[in-house]
């Protein structure tokens, strides 16, 4: 690859000093210090909610830190300057899908006042380097994601950018495409650019990064390099960091032997899948069962099918096979739309994205009752303010939602409380199975432990969560979760999905510490 005409960075590269950022009660960055030098690939690892994304957004100029500074070439830059100088590449390229590759390259530098120019020789070379010459005049929407990403990089290079931040760039790429992308990262680094790689995949960090900074609780705790940079070491640092965070909360892991009943002990199965198959090929041949009182996690990397599997349990992903919900299997489905609807009517679902679970035009109380309105109306279909208020307050109380009143607008709550409202709303009708996708994503530590407690309580068949006058009770909880610390704390068992199949099943009572569990889970996640 021809090195672009980068105005050379001095040896300092990019220096982050004492970056702090709060969102309401939540501390996202707590004095982050980090340096990335030209010519190296700096890896960034950290558990979800550690402050990684806030750091990325700060560097991208999307977020202005409360304190601290970012220096390029030794001088401090404002958010606006950063936005112009730092190129962020993530899984959704910021390109113009309706324009061709060449046009994308020219945007903002079209030349003349009236007519746009053609790409010049150096730009043609650049496209050739990026393996895009064949597509110069193709609109980006017809090209694969990898080519869109390469266009994004090419455009940045054409604009003489020399700081590249890759934020989980390959989570939607094939292995071959990923390899190609990594090769380009090395090329960029070799040509004197600063390259930062944020990734969940420890293997990639270890193979491709020169140094890996561990971000935990909004700080860079450790930087691993040389012989210290091994997958085991990164995993250990992550887990230790998370465990420290959890311990600081004062909540201990109380996996009561009694509550971790597994299937067979009393023969009662709350959920059983056999020959369960995604219609779109995300997963096949899933056989699993969840006992009454159990919390079962389903885990797997992005694209493994784990997420689709969890969606299918709630009827939000099309699947065939046999799904039985509830003790006694009173609703079983073989996959046709009607029977799936009947079976999944007993399943309450909370999605990963709070913006997709909540109604921000409604109040806290109305959100809590959103799934319920037909159950508490009178015969004419009318809702009575007092009934509504009582029910909403009952739920808000059970879920310890910290709101001034149930009339408060949804947007006034903190992230953790919003999540409690989302879960409270899903449990209001007392579904037999509660299915949650990344239940504590973006939630502060305090709310996390409360949510875990509520989930354990809900899985208990004696559970009184939900509204008192509703029929039925919770029988089990299924989570989609990829955080070892979370699975270790809340689940009884975990099914690990790799390439659309169950690659293994782990019983959490077999493990005494997160580290050994994490090692086994990661091994299964990689395909056994």
């Amino acid at each position, binding site marked *: 690859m021809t090195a672009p005409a980068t105005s050379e960075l001095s040896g300092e590269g990019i220096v982050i000093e004492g970056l702090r950022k709060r969102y309401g009660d939540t501390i996202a960055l707590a004095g982050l210090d980090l340096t990335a030098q030209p010519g190296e690939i700096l890896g960034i690892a950290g558990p979800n909610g550690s402050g990684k994304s806030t750091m990325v957004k700060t560097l991208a100029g999307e977020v202005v830190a409360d304190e601290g500074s970012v220096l390029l070439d030794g001088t401090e830059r404002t958010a606006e300057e950063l936005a112009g100088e730092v190129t962020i590449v993530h899984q959704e390229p910021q390109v113009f899908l309706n324009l061709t590759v060449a046009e994308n390259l020219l945007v903002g530098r079209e030349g003349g006042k009236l007519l746009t120019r053609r790409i010049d020789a150096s730009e043609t070379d650049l496209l050739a380097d990026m393996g895009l010459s064949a597509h110069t005049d193709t609109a980006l929407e017809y090209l694969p994601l990898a080519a869109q990403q390469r266009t994004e990089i090419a455009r940045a290079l054409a604009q003489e950018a020399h700081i590249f931040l890759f934020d989980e760039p390959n989570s939607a790429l094939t292995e071959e495409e990923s390899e190609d992308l990594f090769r380009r990262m090395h090329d960029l680094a070799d040509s004197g650019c600063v390259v930062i790689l944020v990734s969940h995949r420890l293997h990639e960090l270890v193979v491709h990064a020169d140094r890996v900074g561990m971000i935990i609780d909004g700080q860079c705790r450790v930087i691993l390099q040389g012989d210290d940079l091994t997958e085991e070491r990164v995993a250990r640092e992550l887990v230790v960091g998370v465990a420290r965070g959890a311990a600081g909360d004062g909540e201990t892991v109380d996996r009561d032997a009694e509550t971790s009943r597994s299937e067979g002990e009393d023969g009662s199965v709350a959920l059983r899948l056999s020959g369960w198959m995604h219609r779109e090929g995300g997963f096949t041949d899933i056989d699993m069962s969840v006992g009454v009182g159990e919390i079962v996690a389903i885990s797997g990397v992005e694209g493994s099918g784990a997420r689709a599997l969890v969606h299918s349990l709630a*009827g939000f992903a099309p699947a065939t096979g046999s799904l039985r919900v509830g003790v006694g299997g009173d609703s079983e489905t073989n996959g046709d739309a009607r029977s799936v609807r009947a079976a999944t009517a007993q399943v309450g679902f909370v999605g990963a994205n709070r913006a*997709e679970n909540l109604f*921000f035009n409604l109040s806290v109380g*109305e959100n809590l009752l959103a799934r319920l309105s037909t159950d508490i109306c009178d015969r004419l279909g*009318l809702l009575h303010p007092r009934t509504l208020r009582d029910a909403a307050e009952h739920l808000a109380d059970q879920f310890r939602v910290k709101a001034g009143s149930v009339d408060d607008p949804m947007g006034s709550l903190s992230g953790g409380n919003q999540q409690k409202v989302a879960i409270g709303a899903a449990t209001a009708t007392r579904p037999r199975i509660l299915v949650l996708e990344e239940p504590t994503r973006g939630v502060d530590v305090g709310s996390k432990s409360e949510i875990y407690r509520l989930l354990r309580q809900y899985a208990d068949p004696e559970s009184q969560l939900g509204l008192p006058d509703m029929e039925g009770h919770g029988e089990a909880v299924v989570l989609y979760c990829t955080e070892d610390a979370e699975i270790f704390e809340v689940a009884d068992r975990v099914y690990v999905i790799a390439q659309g199949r169950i690659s293994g099943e782990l019983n959490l009572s077999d493990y005494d510490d997160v580290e050994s569990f994490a090692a086994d889970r990661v091994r299964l996640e990689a395909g056994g």
Partner: protein
Amino acid sequence: MTNDEPPTTAETGGRTLSRLGGMGLQRIGGLLGAIVIVGFVFAVWSDWLFLKPGNLAVMIRLMGVLGIIGFGLLVVLLVGEIDLSFSALAVLSAVVMGKFWVEFGWPIYVAILLAFAVAIGVGLFNSFFVNIVRVPSFIVTLGSNTLVFGFTLLVSRNTPILAQELPPDPEEWQLRGGDYVDAAEYTFFRALASNYALPGGFPLQVIWMAGFAIVFGVLLSRGVFGFRLKAIGGNEQAALLAKIPVRRYKTMAFVICACMAAVGGLLDFSFISQVQPNQGGTYLFPVFTAVIVGGASLAGGRGTVSGTLLGALLLAVISNGLGLNATGAWVQQMWLGTVTIAAVVLDQWARSRQRGESLGAGLQDLMVRFTRMNSRR
């Protein structure tokens, strides 16, 4: 933690709807104030002619039409969609009814049912393309608006339909020619919206409006129906996750809007006993403006019956006042345009003040939401 950004302005934008139908007192007060001020200006300008019972009756009748059709539009806006076909449909249903009743001599009840069947058909047509084919409702109803208008011209052959009572003397009937309807049916039909029924010459349309206002008010502010409409309009994705039957509610919304348009069209027909097939677009913008001025959000999930009523009254006052002072059609059109834009700007301004932001941010927010609405699928 890192995902824990405070909700974006688009998310916090919606005021809480839980209290008393969700209309801030501030807004009701603002609208009432505007109505009083505008009304006073017209009253003085017209040398108090504006406040004569006869004129008030005319004005209130207009408010009735705007309100009745507006309730239907409100339902569609609440669920997060848009309908541009209702105005053309109001005329089509009247034309269909007139055709069968006046020209073909069918019984009036059958003709009325046919008019509603056509309305329901158009509502289902709109919702089919929105729900199943997944075309943005703006585009679907822009198309069906024109389709309906074309169909109106076809059915009526672009000639007005006049409902006349069969005169007692058959010879006179022979002499004058044309189509006549049964006297009893004619009396019944004219009585639907007559202005003899109420003291002061107030037309019966007002009673219709009041009745619908109560039904819609209760359904929307207290009913599961309204609650779910607002939920779907506020966040369709979340409504799907909550297993609210989104498609069914959208279908109902389009059908209700179509039926209310038919009600408005038929009552108009009843009042003036004539339908002009080429007047399809008359109500489109006044009704839209009334509903938006009344606080309904184009982005969905926000709006009330009380606001729509006040919006309809304000529009009726402006329209009637300008008509009365004989300032020409162009003034009316320009006022209508001004009021529409001003209403939305004021609304954004009020909301951005609540959030302590600039007006620009509020308008940008509206644009983002509107773009999102139209590119959702």
